[in-house]
């Protein structure tokens, strides 16, 4: 407890450390909580998020699992149904495909299909995204896929604050919640506002206000979008950057309000464009906000290819700041 307090008063930390503190706090707060997954214990976590927790909490609460995604995720679902509050870590979303059956057919269906008799208060954390030259099989962005599934909540912390506090809200939620932590963000550093001790998992947040165009984004595309807004500001274009934070259920109200005000919109999403969360957002905007728009909606997504290894190729495959800047320029006529 003492250490937690000491750490909490150190306001500057990495996204990784924020994730770690969040897990640690959850384990201290609730004896029903445990962390379970591949290499979360002895190894300290594939991305070193759970380093040190095994020594502190022991192997019952920091459970190393064999390579059996379907079963340890399913076990998390069963444990949640029977009274625990597990945090299951899937090393990266690329391996979540082996657990997709359990997530989609059990976690997402059972509360509804049992007529509300059983809840699945489970949190699944997984690393997502590209940008570290890990090649195609380790660079997927699957959060948009999971956001397709009714019965789940899907979170994408793009800030240190959200990395630090979303977990607590997710554990307090009676539904299965999946948290996608972007691999590139783990090393990001930032200051925590000492007055903030919790966040909601319902609303999108405006991270930068602007009147000329709304950039709707999340995850590692958030810092890229904020950087684009800086460049644009120097040119006299005031971009508003909206961090989606929650990909399911989408916070229509905040998105609609922003777009209705700026009348222009770019969606930036590291997923592939076809059938993506960006497609969903664009569709909702055109269904509901068509007459508020002064320009077509633009989307900046990953190229529709398996993400390549070579640095220049990978960079070209992902959404980047200059593309966002160009898109904004083309939509907003210079004043």
């Amino acid at each position, binding site marked *: 407890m003492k250490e937690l307090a000491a750490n909490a008063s150190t306001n500057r930390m990495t996204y990784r450390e924020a994730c770690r503190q969040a897990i640690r706090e959850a384990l201290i707060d609730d004896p029903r909580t445990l962390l379970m997954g591949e290499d979360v214990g002895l190894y300290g976590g594939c991305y070193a998020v759970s380093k040190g927790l095994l020594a502190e909490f022991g192997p019952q609460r920091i459970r190393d699992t064999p390579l059996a995604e379907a079963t340890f995720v399913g076990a998390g679902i*069963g444990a949640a149904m029977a009274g625990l509050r597990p945090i299951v870590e899937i090393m990266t979303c690329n391996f979540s495909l082996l657990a997709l059956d359990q997530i989609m057919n059990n976690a997402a269906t059972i509360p509804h299909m049992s007529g509300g008799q059983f809840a699945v208060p489970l949190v699944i954390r997984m690393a997502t995204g590209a940008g570290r030259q890990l090649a195609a099989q380790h660079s997927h962005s699957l959060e948009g896929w999971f956001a397709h599934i009714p019965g789940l909540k899907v979170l994408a912390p793009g800030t240190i604050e959200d990395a630090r506090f979303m977990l607590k809200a997710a554990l307090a939620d009676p539904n299965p919640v999946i948290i996608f932590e972007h691999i590139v963000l783990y090393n990001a550093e930032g200051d925590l506002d000492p007055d903030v001790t919790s966040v909601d998992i319902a609303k999108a947040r405006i991270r930068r206000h602007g009147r000329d165009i709304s950039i709707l984004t999340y995850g590692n595309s958030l810092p890229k979008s904020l950087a684009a807004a800086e460049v644009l500001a120097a040119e006299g274009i005031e971009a508003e950057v909206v961090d989606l934070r929650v990909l399911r259920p989408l916070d229509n109200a905040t998105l609609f309000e922003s777009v209705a005000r700026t009348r222009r919109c770019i969606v930036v999403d590291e997923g592939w464009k076809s059938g993506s969360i960006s497609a969903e957002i664009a569709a909702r905007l055109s269904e509901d906000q068509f007459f508020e728009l002064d320009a077509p909606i633009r989307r900046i997504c990953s190229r529709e290819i398996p993400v390549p290894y070579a640095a220049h190729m990978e960079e070209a495959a992902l959404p980047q700041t200059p593309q966002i800047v160009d898109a904004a320029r083309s939509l907003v006529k210079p004043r």
Partner: protein
Amino acid sequence: MSQKPHIDRESGRHLFKQMLRIRRFEAKCAELYQAQKIRGFLHLYDGEEAVALGVMQALEDRDAVVATYRDHGHAIARGLPMATLMAEMYGKMEGCSRGRGGSMHFFDRARRFYGGNAIVGGGLPLAIGIAMADKQLRPGAVTACFFGEGAAGEGAFHESINLAELWDLPVLFVCENNLYAMGMPLELAEAETNISRKAAAYRTPNEAVDGMNPIAVEAAARRAVDSIRGGNGPYFLECRTYRFRAHSMFDAQLYRTREEIELWKERDPLPRMQKWLEETHMLSPQELRGIEADVEAEIGKAVAFAEQGQWEKIEELERFVLVDEVPE
């Protein structure tokens, strides 16, 4: 502590009646399916009654059950009221899952019945988690997890037995080996057809038992439950059985012969049990008629209950997609 099953007048008649309840319930379901009162997929349990019944005999209220899509027998033997099962299949909101699951998805929180699962092998990981929670929150409770021999082909089967053994979890794995997975004969699906040996490979105590004999299943299940409650980790019970009816209502049964079915019917636990009870003077003809009449009346009431049930309002369609709280 559970003891060796001793068959006296009362327990013999109890077993017989329970099996008859399942058998007659299934016959009524088939009839109502023809009449299009029940729709969707319907998988009947005829021939396998001794398995569910024998295992449930060894369980207590504090224990949990994970079932398959062929779950009528599991549910009835666990004590779910027939009326709510029938209402469920009618799609009525008085059904045990509010009419949202149908035949394959019976749920009952009060009886720790964690659902019929329609994904082959899909329930095994759930059982692992339920047992993890029980070990911490309800020490001594056992989770009985049913699955067909077809599940042995799935990765989740192997992963789950391994985890249960590795983590010493109180899981009773119950393999209902009826020799076919839809039309797939066991010997065409598995290199090792002795399923319990697969459990042995994970060091899990295991036993193969005559699944056509409720007394043998009960005895084995009691041994298993004793071992599990004794803190020895999971136990794997392979019940060798046979389904008398088609896999579902859409099955021409091209994969097996009438002779084979008839041969297995000679081992039908119901007439055998009845004959034995009669020969040992534990069941008079009059008592038999009494039991049959009771069962028919119960089924009649279940059907009437289902007929009179209400449809859930369409406005409730999205209710429980997300829940507001965890039910106590």
